[in-house]
């Protein structure tokens, strides 16, 4: 009975010290360099991946008609507003004609005068014809009289000369008439030119379309070539896409594309690659392509909106596939940490196509069914002790594909 208090004290002491020691050993083994690195493992799968490429671009109209005057001037009226549908030939606006109308009136007057001149010249010609005919008859008559010696030779000569004068006068009249006619033609042409100029001041759309912008308002002076109204053809909407060159292999016309407008996040519209531009952007290292909608979205999205385009490439034949998270580069060599008999071995691999979900095709170095490290708590070394877990502590459930 006497020893009992001592024994219970010893027990209590052990009860305190022993757990502490166990804890200490646990701590020493589970943290620091002696602790195993937690890893998750995945098996190399044999499957067919469908690579895709991803790019961003802006919505563009293929045809943009900038309608404006061909000479500098002031805008008199603009008949349409942004958003209006217009038809080919519709008058969109007009430039100020200034004195053009008056010049047309003046030209008309000139034209009428020229017409009058023609009439006058014609009358003169008729007069000259009459005079000439008469002079000719007179000359004939005097010649006949000369044969019967009833008039003097001088009188005959005078009549002959009169006849000649009348002939010349007729020729002059004819020339005058021709001149008057030419003048009339000139004034007509001038009048036509002015009318053309007048028509040119009318701003007319060449196509059916949509008014995309109304750049200036009446009263503004614009220079030649500046646009007053911009008309687009909404049916010609396409996407000007830029693809990173590194991942653009396989991009070609005719491939199906999914177009996601920034304003309609998550909702993809189908489209087709219309063409890949022959010129790439050398500065930004991007490939440019045009993608058209299979069916135009309604309502029409605004031109210039940012879009994301995913182009699906042809499905690859079945081959060993690993997630890209397992691929590492050690000493310049691409590879994965393969698990063989519970030990780590760095297996160099050669990779092929990748898809947007992070699957990587292994061309060389791995066989289906082999176990490789997917995620790890630290960077691994060949000498690392590992412990395979379902998921790395602190990490959310793996494998969820956003």
């Amino acid at each position, binding site marked *: 009975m006497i020893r009992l208090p001592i024994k219970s004290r010893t027990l209590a002491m052990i009860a305190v010290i022993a757990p502490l020691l166990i804890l200490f050993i646990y701590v020493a083994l589970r943290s620091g360099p002696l602790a195993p690195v937690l890893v998750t493992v995945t098996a190399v799968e044999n499957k067919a991946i469908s690579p895709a490429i991803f790019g961003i671009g802006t919505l563009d109209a293929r045809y943009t008609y900038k309608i404006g005057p061909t000479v500098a001037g002031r805008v008199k009226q603009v008949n349409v507003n942004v958003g209006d549908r217009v038809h080919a030939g519709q008058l969109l606006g007009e430039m100020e004609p200034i004195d053009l109308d008056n010049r047309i009136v003046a030209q008309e007057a000139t034209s009428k005068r020229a017409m009058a001149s023609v009439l006058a010249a014609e009358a003169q010609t008729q007069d000259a014809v009459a005079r000439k005919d008469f002079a000719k008859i007179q000359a004939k008559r005097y010649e006949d009289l000369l044969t019967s010696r009833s008039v003097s030779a001088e009188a005959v000569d005078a009549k002959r000369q009169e006849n000649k004068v009348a002939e010349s006068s007729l020729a002059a009249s004819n020339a005058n008439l021709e001149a008057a006619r030419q003048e009339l033609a000139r004034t007509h042409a001038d009048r036509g030119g002015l009318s053309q100029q007048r028509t040119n001041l009318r701003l007319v759309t060449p196509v059916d379309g949509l008014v995309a912008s109304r750049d200036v308002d009446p009263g503004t002076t614009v220079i030649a070539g500046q646009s007053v109204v911009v008309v687009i053809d909404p049916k010609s909407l396409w996407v000007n896409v830029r693809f990173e060159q*590194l991942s653009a292999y396989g991009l070609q016309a005719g491939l199906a594309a999914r177009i996601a407008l920034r304003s309609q996040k998550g909702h993809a519209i189908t489209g087709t690659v219309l063409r890949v531009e022959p010129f790439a952007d050398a500065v930004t290292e991007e490939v440019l392509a045009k993608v058209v909608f299979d069916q135009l979205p309604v309502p029409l999205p605004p031109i210039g909106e940012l879009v994301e385009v995913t182009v699906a490439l042809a499905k690859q034949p079945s081959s060993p596939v690993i997630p890209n998270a397992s691929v590492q580069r050690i000493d310049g060599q691409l590879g994965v940490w393969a698990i063989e008999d519970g030990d780590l071995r760095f297996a160099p691999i050669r990779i092929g196509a990748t898809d947007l979900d992070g699957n990587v095709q292994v061309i060389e170095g791995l066989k289906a069914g082999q176990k490789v490290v997917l995620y790890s708590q630290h960077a691994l070394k060949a000498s690392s002790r590992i412990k395979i877990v379902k998921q790395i502590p602190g990490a959310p459930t793996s494998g969820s594909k956003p």
Partner: protein
Amino acid sequence: MISLAGRDIMHAWGKFVFTGVGLGLLIGVTLTMAGVYRGMVDDAKALLDNSGADLWVVQKDTLGPYAESSSLYDDTYRSLLSISGVARAANITYLTMQVREGGRDVRAMVVGVVSGGPGQPGQPSYLISGRQITRGHYEAVADIASGFNLGQSIQIRRNHYTVVGLTRRMVSSGGDPMVFIPLKDAQEAQFLKDNDAIVQQRRRTAENPAFNRPNVPGLLNQVIASQSTNTFVNAILVQIKPGFSAEEVAEPIRHWKRLQVYTRTQMESILVGKLIATSAKQIAMFLVILAVVSAAIVAFIIYTLTMGKIREIAVLKLIGTKNRTIAGMIMQQALGLGVIGFVVGKVAATFWAPIFPKYVLLVPGDAILGFLAVMLICVLASLLAIRAALKVDPAEAIGG
């Protein structure tokens, strides 16, 4: 022969154990402080490890990209690829900023990486969940310390990014979690102003008669377009081919390309020696004071423990116990106290280290050093106590 020390401890084991635990917590704090210092240095090294680079090519005469800002044209990497010994070169941008997610924002270092398939320099070397970036835009891999989760949409400037992967221990030298995004987006984010500022800038440009010329239609649009492009990156990470030494490759780049090149050793000395130098010294100073204070407290505790037993020691001397036995008892107790203290301290430090917001790295070397220091202090303190105990007059036992 019975253990005098053991018997004495057993006599008042509660007091002994609690003193040990108290001491242990103090040692735990000291070990943690050492861990904070190590963590700080490790954060700086993690930054270098994670970049996966052998050489850092930065703007001439700068200490970039971590310690100083540096900017290079983004096509410079092409000319680096032609240098012999360069295996891979990749552009990278770093920008520490607030990343928004829902209603909160997280301070993070946004890293712009070339999304050129796995294993490119600059990309996170290992993940703990999800996958690496595969799209050239609007995807992000975030460090777990940021608190972001897979599938979440985070906002950097005005663009939204989907978190597709999570990493661990990918931090800046300041301990901010990294968020990896594609390079093009990062370049834009670095220079992209908010929409208000852009609109105001456009208006300002439009007011400038040099750019808004009525007889040159379209000039204004071109000028505005040129204002919002960014063709700069902060650094180029270079991996060298096997068989070349870092300096061997760095020298021609310095010489012919007239750019600054840092090797791993140089970069480490910049980060540790310059970037975190003062804060690390601050912690180191605190660690030294804490160690001295802990040593003093340990010494005082042992001294007062012994002094509390001075009457019993006098009795021992009175009954003729040898000095050596008494000295042994005191020293064994001191060492026992030290061992309990160390064990408690180590366990406590290990358990509370992960709760710290910044990384606390407990190095086994530090623990061993700490253990030796604790033992040494205990021995020294017990010597003081032994000296006091041996000087005691046995008469005190009866006299009082």
